């Protein structure tokens, strides 16, 4: 598959802790998790740019909250 390029990533301790926790929860390496996050961010961004909105829905409380993405 595609040739990979290597980069150095500078994270704070809190960010690294969060990354490591997610890696354990998702059973993924840091690289795989960040690649997955990039794929998701690109998808969400494309759909928001297309005029769609992103919501979290609480079915019990019957609440919908829009997620605003950078």
């Amino acid at each position: 598959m595609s040739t990979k390029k290597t980069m150095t990533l500078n994270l704070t301790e809190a960010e690294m802790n969060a990354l490591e926790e997610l890696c354990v929860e998702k059973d993924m390496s840091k690289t795989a998790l960040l690649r997955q996050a990039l794929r998701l961010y690109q998808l969400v961004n494309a759909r928001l740019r297309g005029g769609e909105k992103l919501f979290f829905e609480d079915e019990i409380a019957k609440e919908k909250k829009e997620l605003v993405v950078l």
Partner: protein
Amino acid sequence: MNSSHRIPLLNNVTGEFVEAILHERIDSAYALRVDDIWLTYLAAAEARANAEGRPFARLEHAHWSWLAKVAGSSRLLSCPTLAIECEGEPQGLMLLKTDGHFANLPNEAGRPLVYVTYLASAPWNLRGVVDRPRFSGIGTLLMRAAVQVSIEAEFKGRVGLHALPQAESFYECHGFACLGKDPDKENLKYYELTPEAADAFINRRKP
């Protein structure tokens, strides 16, 4: 077009392997070319069959517009669009999704998988359309690529898909487990490949 790899493909006419190219990303122009070539070929094959008084089995996916499918996912990392090209013609296409799909099999439930949105071989490679397909193994090579995408995403080879009835036996032969008909997907049968089955599939002897 993004990166491409050389892969061997069996030419049924000569009985020899030839070099094909696996494209990891195709664009709308490529998809438009596929629609043009494949639909023209199908129309000619049907006209020939009609003229000769032979029955012509309609493909379940003959109406697919690859342009529409690829245009909706172009450049999205979470929607890989792969193609196999040989002798200057598209031999097979596949669209995948790497986000938003999770396994349903008991031991894998909730774990992410690569979902095969669409997969098709060129009509001249299909036994239902021609007596002697020009190339063999297009579907298997594309499925191998899907498993590879899953492994690279660290989904451990998990793959899921809804199969058209004409393709069910293909997936069953390749180790996919059937989870029954899905009423939310036109009652198509839903299949999944476990990490173990993916491992067995990917380690089968390559041509």
